[in-house]
């Protein structure tokens, strides 16, 4: 009974809409009318429509998500490490200061980067001013790597937190014990710090990998036609294409794959450890 409020919440705001999505994925849409046909043609379409473009887009998005995950962890881990193990006073103040510039909405963040790396952005302006190039470089904007770059820059500061928490939890006497037993700094990091902070890395992976998979704002703003992601395809299906059943099938497919990935990740580290570091 104690779970009732939570169950009510989940049922009405998650399971019912999700159920509708599942039902739609087996229907068909003609014009603006939904027809219950109850077959799998939408799922077949996910793999075959436009010579498998959607499934290729899916794998491209997966690659982008993986790249963003690795990149943002690589950027955030050293920061978390530094704050946790090297800074002694005002650790939390430093963390908050670090977050400051990122407490804006995502759209502003993306447009902010446009002013730096966009066609008429700061970098192009400075490079022209210094005479390094004669006309603006166009390879920095409106493609998939601009999307990757902005996603990394946007996610990294948030990842500092879970990794900081799991680094803080490491008993410092373990590091001293390792040093005492002959481990040099690099060995100490690889044998003690890194494995003991792995739950934080996993939380970070969850944080980034799964939301990035369905990302559609950043590619819409910074990706141009070359930087389209799977999330944009879902978006178009429900809006411009007026193909709700197909969009539902795309969504459900994405959800199933996300669940599989999440399950694998949890299996690697164990749910208990994961919860400890949250």
């Amino acid at each position, binding site marked *: 009974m104690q779970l009732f409020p939570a169950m009510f919440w989940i049922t009405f705001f998650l399971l019912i809409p999700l159920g509708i999505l599942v039902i739609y994925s087996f229907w068909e849409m003609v014009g603006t009318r939904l027809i219950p046909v109850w077959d799998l043609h939408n799922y077949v379409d996910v793999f075959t429509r436009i010579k498998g473009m959607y499934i290729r887009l899916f794998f491209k998005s997966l690659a982008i998500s993986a790249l963003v995950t690795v990149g943002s962890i690589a950027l955030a881990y050293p920061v978390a490490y530094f704050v946790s193990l090297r800074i002694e006073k005002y650790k939390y103040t430093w963390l908050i200061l670090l977050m400051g510039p990122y407490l804006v909405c995502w759209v502003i963040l993306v447009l902010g980067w446009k002013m730096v790396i966009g066609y008429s952005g700061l970098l192009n302006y400075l490079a022209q001013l210094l005479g390094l190039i004669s006309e603006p470089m166009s390879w920095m904007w409106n493609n998939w790597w601009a999307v990757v770059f902005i996603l990394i820059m946007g996610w990294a500061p948030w990842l500092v937190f879970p990794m900081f928490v799991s680094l803080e939890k490491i008993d410092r*006497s373990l590091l*001293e014990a*390792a040093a*005492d037993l002959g481990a040099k700094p690099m060995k100490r990091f690889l044998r003690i710090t890194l494995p003991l902070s792995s739950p934080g890395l996993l939380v970070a992976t969850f944080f980034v990998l799964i939301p990035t998979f369905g990302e559609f704002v950043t590619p819409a703003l910074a990706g141009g036609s070359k930087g389209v992601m799977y999330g944009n395809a879902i978006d178009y299906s429900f809006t411009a294409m007026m193909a709700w059943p197909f969009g539902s099938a795309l969504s459900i497919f994405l959800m199933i794959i996300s669940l599989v990935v999440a399950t694998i990740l949890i299996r690697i580290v164990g749910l208990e450890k994961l919860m400890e570091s949250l």
Partner: protein
Amino acid sequence: MEKKDVVLENVTKKFADIVAVDDISFSVKRGEFFSLLGPSGCGKTTTLRMIAGLEKPTKGKIYIGEEDVSEVPPFERPCNLFFQNVALFPHMNVSENIAFGLEMKKLPKSEIEKRVKELLDVVGLPGFEKRRTKELSGGQAQRIGIARALARRPRVLLLDEPLGPLDLKLREEMMIELKRIQKVVGTTFIYVTHDQGEAITMSDEIAAMKEGKIIQIGSTEELYNKPRTAFVAEFIGRSNLIRGRYHKGKVNLNNLNKSIITGPHKIADNDYVAACIKPERISIGEDIANLDNVFEAVIEEVYFRGAQINYKVLMEGNYKISILEHYKGKIFEEGKKLKIGWKKEDVHLSEA
């Protein structure tokens, strides 16, 4: 001359403005069980951490063997530390924990396996290789911690209050166990504790510390029988202290117009001293003869401990005195007025 394993020369450690260790010097002989004994905050742990290389001395030099290790990082020092909280690596099993230090030495696998097995035998836990650290009891974890610290065959094993977290019974077992292990491996042990019982039971030599300084250093018996100051006397063996001025073979008491006969000492007349009398050297009874010092007393508390009885009495002049007596079938009751006494040889004079 006997070989010295560890030598500290005028070592001082300051943390900001606080002097944790104040110009101490001592040396530890090869194969000795040496204890640093003192109340918390006396600088004993800091001293140990400096020997281990985890803290840098502000001043002074530390030698291990013949080598000046003052500038040597901890991972290159020929000593290992047993941590207060054991600090076993939680993500490794027992054999991986013990093997860690050996892997850092890049020994071949077969040799590491052999050494791990050997060490588990030494600490009395054969067959524990694959156990996870979470599955170990407090006492088992301690033994594994000791095995891990001994794995690299250090010249010196440093122990920081290793028995602190254990309950009394386990602590007594581990004391005997530690001493046995030390004899088996023959390594020099430097042991930090605030527990005089632990120090007395295991040590060959004890350095009593207070406020960053060493007050007295010597064999266990020496510190027990001849404490140099009242602090050492109170800390070790719980002596009874009666303060007064020394005058020609007597101590004239502060609170009482009487004196304690001590026999001649090399102390200037009229110096303040503390007369220490061990609880087990004091006789108690209704009729005491042939003793140099006899005083009136009232029994305030009686603790029957089986083989021994501990009386807390109030001696004339308001001195609280503790007496330990072997139980021979007779106990005095609380409130009883009687006499207590001791011989002059049983009085030791310390700095007040």
